[in-house]
């Protein structure tokens, strides 16, 4: 990284956990994907979710910023319920505008990058601050330049996504999420679509971010990253949390048979 800018990462305003899930269920039609998830993510924590594909880890991540609606249970971010407002013991569904407002504080990085292909790298990063926060173009450009510099792509600012490698696109995507100054970052298998030699650059950016105190929830197959950077690790299978604990403990000394057999295949 060429320079290090300490973005003031807010550690949450509620004083409680950053994410709190209590008995979260989610189904798509007849498919029951999440079968009662209970977990807690503390501010400034790097929280890793691992598990076989189809175990529901990505679905759970998407529930956190309400890209998916939970069917049962309670899910809250920084003390506020996701998708609902509670008043006199009753739940009121949030309007689209209110949902959008809550999402501002949660950054998300996708497996397939999902950069806006008709905009250059810097325009991708500037888009949300200008459109959502109403920032001035000059201010947004200045911060976007710093963010691109932080992810090591200052010289690629004018390139369109199609002119960037997968690893570069993913780093732009991280910069784009950071531009909204989120208090929580969600990573949905951020390195799974990358060539092996490009994975390291993206993980370096994420490590840098973790060192800065950003609260991060990372769905990943990178056990090395989980061990090195993670503060807690959860192993999910078939819609339930099978095992959780400190990454080094879970990875080296798994208690459940299911965890053992999964880890024996991926490590």
């Amino acid at each position, binding site marked *: 990284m060429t320079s290090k800018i300490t973005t003031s990462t807010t550690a949450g305003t509620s004083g409680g956990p950053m994410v709190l899930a209590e008995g979260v269920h989610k189904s798509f039609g007849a498919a029951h994907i999440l079968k009662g998830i209970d977990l807690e993510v503390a501010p400034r924590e790097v929280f890793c979710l691992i598990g076989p594909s189809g175990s529901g880890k990505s679905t759970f991540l998407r529930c956190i*910023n309400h*890209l998916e609606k939970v069917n049962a249970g309670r899910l809250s971010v920084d003390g506020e319920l996701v998708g609902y407002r509670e008043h006199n013991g009753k739940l009121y569904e949030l309007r*689209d*505008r209110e949902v*959008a*407002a809550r*999402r*501002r504080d*949660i*950054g*998300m990085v*996708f497996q*397939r990058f*999902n*950069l*806006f*292909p*008709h*905009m*250059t790298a810097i325009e991708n990063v500037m*888009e*949300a601050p200008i*459109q*959502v926060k109403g920032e001035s173009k000059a201010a947004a450009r200045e911060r976007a330049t710093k963010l691109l510099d932080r992810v090591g792509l200052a010289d690629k600012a004018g390139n*369109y*996504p*199609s*002119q960037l490698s997968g690893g570069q696109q993913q780093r732009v*995507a991280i910069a*784009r*999420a950071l531009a*909204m100054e989120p208090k929580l970052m969600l990573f949905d298998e951020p390195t799974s679509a990358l060539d092996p030699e490009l994975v390291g650059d993206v993980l370096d950016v994420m490590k840098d971010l973790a060192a800065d105190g950003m609260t991060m929830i990372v769905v990943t197959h990178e056990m090395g990253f989980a061990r090195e950077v993670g503060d807690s690790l959860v192993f999910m299978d078939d819609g339930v949390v099978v095992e959780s604990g400190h990454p080094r403990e879970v990875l080296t000394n798994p208690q459940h048979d299911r965890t053992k057999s999964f880890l024996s295949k991926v490590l």
Partner: protein
Amino acid sequence: MSVDVDKPAQPPADAPPPQPEPIKAIPVRHYGRWVAAIVVVGLIALLFRAFASGNVNWGAIPQYMFNADILKGLRNTLLITVLSMIIGIVLGVILAVMRQSKNPVTSSVAWFYVWFFRGTPVYVQLFLWFNLGLVFQYIDIMPIYKDEWSDFMTPFLCALLGLGLNEAAYMAEICRAGLNAVDEGQTEAAHALGMSHARTLRRIIVPQAMRVIVPPTGNEVINMLKTSSLVIAVQYYDLLQAAQNVGRDSGVVVEMLILAAAWYLIATTVLSIGQYYLERYYARGSSRQLPPTPLQRAKARLTGGFHRAGGAA
């Protein structure tokens, strides 16, 4: 192994790497192409001769090319084409968005609109607008405007509504296809950044959908230019009407039809060129390098000699 024997001596380190010798081979001769070309040229010559010796007064065509009535008709044709397309595109986009709305009332209204206007011939629709006076005798928008229907519904307005509202149904389907063609991940990424539904559409989805929407829309414009000749049904004075009038008055009926065809061809050619540049504009970001414009291609051929015009894809 004798591999080392064939190895050429290493060139000095600072010399440029030696260019590999290009393959010299005798290209395949395409005799079929020559035969086909001769046959085609022969047929064209025969057809040309038949038309030239036919009972057509060819001199009348250049003579009336810039006739005031013909030009007025052409102007009206272009005007009605442009205005109907504007109505069609604006209303089409609205209908496409309505169709995708979560609100069941809006989406049903859009569905019904497309069902009706796409399901009846535009010629019939033009007649219906023309005869709507049978239903409404007066138009009365209380404080602003009040008139007899027949005075209000001029041939121009009939033509505009008939063509524009019909076009909107087709444009709605084209826009819907374009909106659906944009990857779901784009919407998710925009929503995850906190962008509202409307803003996501405007800033992220529609610009990308344009790449899918523009080519068929170009077709629609060209189609509209020709379909507009149906406005004869509502007595609007368009190019075809003008050509027929001039032809009848001057005894050059067929000649004026050929002249009209020539003007339609010229107009569609100009539109096709415009379409090419519009498509090129919306392709930015989707391919690594934009294809060169014909002008750039010609320039490259003149200055750069044998550079491949297409460039690296």
